[in-house]
């Protein structure tokens, strides 16, 4: 990996130097501000409108800049960096096509509340609005998918705007913030004085909950016979996994975590029921439907979790804890709303939390159900089963890796069969379901965690959406282990067409895919292929031993389906169990 700050100046010295007021260009202001915000890694792609910025980066070493091969690669990498570290991810692109290439990645981050600062160049101010060469109204285009955005009109505003952008991105409900900088603004000079304070009128996220509401929750727990916790990504984003653990232990309430919440609670714990929803566990889904108290902690009642809304958790009193008041009551009517930062809420709740005394029968029932209905599949000795591969990945890494995924069947199998115990070990596009996310996000996750093993699990379809980023793994020696579960089709689409569209397979055949081993090697990345269990174990061991990046293609059974499955429009306890039993 690239080592940062090769020169030996200490961080503090550097900061002190950067804080000195000086007349510099907008571009230099940007770079200095990024360093002062604690940024150590930026993903980007240059072009006309950001030439001053890239010029200022010539010979610059106070943070790493990774030149991706596509802007989509840059923003997903920044996203993976943010999800795996909790820090703000940063990417830079030029105006027009560079900026519009970021749109998918911005929407991905927005849907999953990932803090990003996205910097785009724009044409010079006087050309804005004239359909100038490479002009796009990127602030307009991205308005629905950013938490906030700025079009910088004056270099004087730049230090404040950058500082605000970082603040907005990483406080309250997190999300992507866009800063669009016209070329002249990046060239103009002004006296730079670092901004260290923010005051944004009207922006005051509620951190501390209303005490009375917390009291109501404690009372409801004491009364409940079938209480259940539904925890989501919010737990991880607020760094509340320890508080959650304490809360669960004190109350002894069974818990299910959403796709984005995986890792927020140890998967091996007796009280853990697995994930709920479309491809969730039998027990998690049944328990939601039977619960008399459902405590939602930092999840947003996404339709992939709730299934048919009108039949969701029909017997439960609903408690909803969320930093974003707009989530409360948006999809599911709430009996006890608690607005606040999950960590703060749980800290307060933990002071009073008591064991849910009336729930013993319920706990026993769920424990038995869990034992009876684990995720399962029919293994085969002739063909590689994707679930088996994921189990192998789990076993050979003791569940310690950071796993990123793309979108499709492999994503669900990874969620089902790789067991997560630690927060920020699971990076996946939940809300938008973005194919092409898996591999570049792993690059970001690895940059943020140089010493951890990062595995990226992809389908043969999605891998082809950002495969070009193999180049940056090779060049920067980013030792990501890329797994491709190759079923030769757009698997998840095939599954729907089989089960819901009567076997009418329409445009899912991925014949013509490259030889992934050769493709990797063409980029200078080690490639492996396995078609049976023996090979699978052998090549995976070898890939793990290999010190650099590696791509391992597992040729798996084409017709395999993800079970259980809740068809769209059904309630979540109407599960198709398939051949999994």
């Amino acid at each position, binding site marked *: 990996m690239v080592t940062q700050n090769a020169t030996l100046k200490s961080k503090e010295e550097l900061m002190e130097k950067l804080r000195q007021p000086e007349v510099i260009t907008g571009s230099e202001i940007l770079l200095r501000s990024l360093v002062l915000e604690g940024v150590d890694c930026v993903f980007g792609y240059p072009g006309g409108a950001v030439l001053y910025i890239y010029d200022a980066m010539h010979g610059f070493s106070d943070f790493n800049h990774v030149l991706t091969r596509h802007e989509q690669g840059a923003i997903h990498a920044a996203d993976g960096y943010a999800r795996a570290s909790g820090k703000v991810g940063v990417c830079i692109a030029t105006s027009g096509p560079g900026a519009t290439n970021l749109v998918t990645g911005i929407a991905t981050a927005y849907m999953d509340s990932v803090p990003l600062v996205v910097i785009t160049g724009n044409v010079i101010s006087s050309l804005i609005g004239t359909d100038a060469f490479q002009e796009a109204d990127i602030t*307009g285009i991205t*308005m629905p998918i950013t*938490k906030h955005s700025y079009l910088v009109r004056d270099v004087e505003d730049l230090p404040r705007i950058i500082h605000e952008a970082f603040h907005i991105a990483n406080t309250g409900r997190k999300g992507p913030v866009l800063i669009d900088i016209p070329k002249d603004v990046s060239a103009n000079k002004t006296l730079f004085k670092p901004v260290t304070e923010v005051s*944004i*009128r009207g922006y005051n996220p509620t951190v501390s909950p209303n005490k009375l509401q917390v009291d109501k929750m404690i009372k409801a727990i004491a009364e409940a016979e079938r209480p259940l916790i539904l925890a989501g990504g919010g737990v991880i984003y607020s760094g509340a996994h320890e508080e959650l653990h304490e809360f669960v232990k004190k109350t002894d309430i069974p818990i299910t975590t959403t796709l984005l919440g995986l890792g927020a609670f140890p998967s091996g714990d007796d009280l853990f029921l697995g994930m709920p929803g479309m491809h969730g566990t039998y027990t998690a889904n049944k328990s939601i439907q039977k619960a008399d108290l459902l405590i939602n902690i930092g999840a947003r009642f996404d339709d992939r979790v709730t299934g048919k809304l009108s039949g969701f958790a029909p017997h439960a009193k609903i408690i909803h804890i969320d930093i*974003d*008041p*707009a989530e409360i009551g*948006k999809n599911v009517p709430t009996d006890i709303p608690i607005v606040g930062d999950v960590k703060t809420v749980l800290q307060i709740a933990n002071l009073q939390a008591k064991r849910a005394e009336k729930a013993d029968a319920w706990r026993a029932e769920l424990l038995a159900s869990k034992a009876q209905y684990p995720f399962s599949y029919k293994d085969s000795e002739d063909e590689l089963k994707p679930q088996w591969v994921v189990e192998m990945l789990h076993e050979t890494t003791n569940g310690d890796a950071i796993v990123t995924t793309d979108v499709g069947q492999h994503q669900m199998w990874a969620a089902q069969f790789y067991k997560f115990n630690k927060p920020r070990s699971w990076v996946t596009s939940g809300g938008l379901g973005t194919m092409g996310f898996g591999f570049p996000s792993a690059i970001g996750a690895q940059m943020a965690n140089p010493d951890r093993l990062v595995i990226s699990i992809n389908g043969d379809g999605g891998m082809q959406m950002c495969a070009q980023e193999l180049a940056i793994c090779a060049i920067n020696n980013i030792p990501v282990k890329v797994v491709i579960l190759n079923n030769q089709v757009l698997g998840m689409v095939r599954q729907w067409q089989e089960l819901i569209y009567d076997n009418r397979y329409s445009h899912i055949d991925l014949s013509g895919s490259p030889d992934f081993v050769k493709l990797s090697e063409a980029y200078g990345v080690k490639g492996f292929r396995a078609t049976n269990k023996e090979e699978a174990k052998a090549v995976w061991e070898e890939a793990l031993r290999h010190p650099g990046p590696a791509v391992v293609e597992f040729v798996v059974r084409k017709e395999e389906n993800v079970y259980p499955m809740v068809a769209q429009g059904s309630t979540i306890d109407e599960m198709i169990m398939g051949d999994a039993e």
Partner: protein
Amino acid sequence: MIKHTIAVIVNDQPGVLQRVSGLFGRRGFNIESITVGTSEEVGLSRMVIVTTGDEQTLEQITKQLYKLIDVIKVIHLSSNPIVARELALIKVSAEPAARPEIFGVVETFRAAVVDIGTHSVMVQVVGDTEKIDAMVELLKPYGIRELSRTGVTALNRGNSR
């Protein structure tokens, strides 16, 4: 469906109208009318939006608006007594013979004739939405050539803020 009038106090930033109206469109909220202008404080604009929906929709509208960084305050005006006004300019076909009748209508509504052409007159009327609707209905038989309404602007009555 119930009609609601809300005031949204926003930072007077470029694009803020787009942010607010875009939010309504994207989330499927209805905008019956929207007016924007300066407020009592420099740097802040006041938007008045008339929308329809049940109480839950209104609550979501309010919460979603508050998510916009440039939104400072959302006031549900129509939950209290309000003064709500709209202005309309109506150009009516009016041959000289028909004019006395039209002027009669104008007078009863305490509206005003603000321009007279050879074949038309322009009427200006200020009032709540119902009054303007009524005025339009009455002028229709003469032939409305052009019509322009401002949308509602409103404040709460009395000392309440």
